[in-house]
């Protein structure tokens, strides 16, 4: 029998689509009985959507001068290889 504490691990696997049919049934059964875990899973899913949109996790687009510098290095590599 799953506990609510177990759910804080299993919920991640559920949302990642990473569980087999039996594990999904065990989780669905627990969720049927536990409103707090239903809330946890729903709000964890919302958290993941927030993270997907959060610019703090965005990588920086390189500037034109950064691109120029790397491209020049790559061209130099070709010359030295010849």
């Amino acid at each position, binding site marked *: 029998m799953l*506990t*609510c*504490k*177990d759910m*804080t*691990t299993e919920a*991640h*696997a559920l949302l*990642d689509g*990473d569980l087999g049919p039996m594990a999904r049934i065990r989780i669905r059964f627990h969720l049927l009985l*536990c409103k*707090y*875990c239903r*809330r*946890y899973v729903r*709000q*964890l899913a*919302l*958290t*993941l*959507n*927030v*993270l*997907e*949109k*959060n*610019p*703090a*996790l*965005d*990588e*920086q*687009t*390189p500037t034109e001068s*950064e*691109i120029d510098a*790397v*491209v020049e*290095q*790559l*061209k130099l*590599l*070709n010359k030295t290889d010849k």
Partner: protein
Amino acid sequence: MSEPNNKFDDEAVLILGLLAQDETAYRFAVKTHHGSMLYLARRIVGDKIADEVVQEAWLSVMKALPRFEGRSKLKSWILTIVSNEAKNRLRKEKRYVSLDAMTDDMGEDTSSINERFGKNEHWTEPPGDWRADSPDALLSGTELSSCLDQAIRELPALQEATLCLKEKQGYSLNEICNILDISDSNVRVLLHRARNKIFTIIDHFQLTGECCTQTDT
């Protein structure tokens, strides 16, 4: 406005262009991948030498490209090279410990989610009922948004890198294992801890209207 389609959006065309030493292919590849390479290198070796590591990684990418077999996406393969270059650099500077070992120190669970259960492992302090049901509604005020920015910056580096690779860049857990060369179970631990930390910060904010990061904003 989105950029018009570029022929190099097709990975096979890009690879052919790079192998033919086509400068426009170089520029496209650098513009597309340099940012994520730098992001990852910074999380492994720190800001100071990340630029050098990425420069080295680009040279390794070009040298190894003729042997690229296409068993993974090009981007994933490039990030694996960055991760290896970064670890080599740490090794040279005798700062190297395997990333698996780093998860012991850097993956500390700061979410406090495990303290919210009784002896029977059922909720004693359940999550609050958030008033918002969409990311836009949740982030409608600037306060939570800046609180989350702060929280993400305060995550241990490997937790942040794993979170970014999974939630932002959409890599599978298996791809993240390969990129960082850490075990499946450690990737899960890093990811769960990072997600739960962000979850508890949103939960606290919804309940109190206050930010509970280490450096409150």
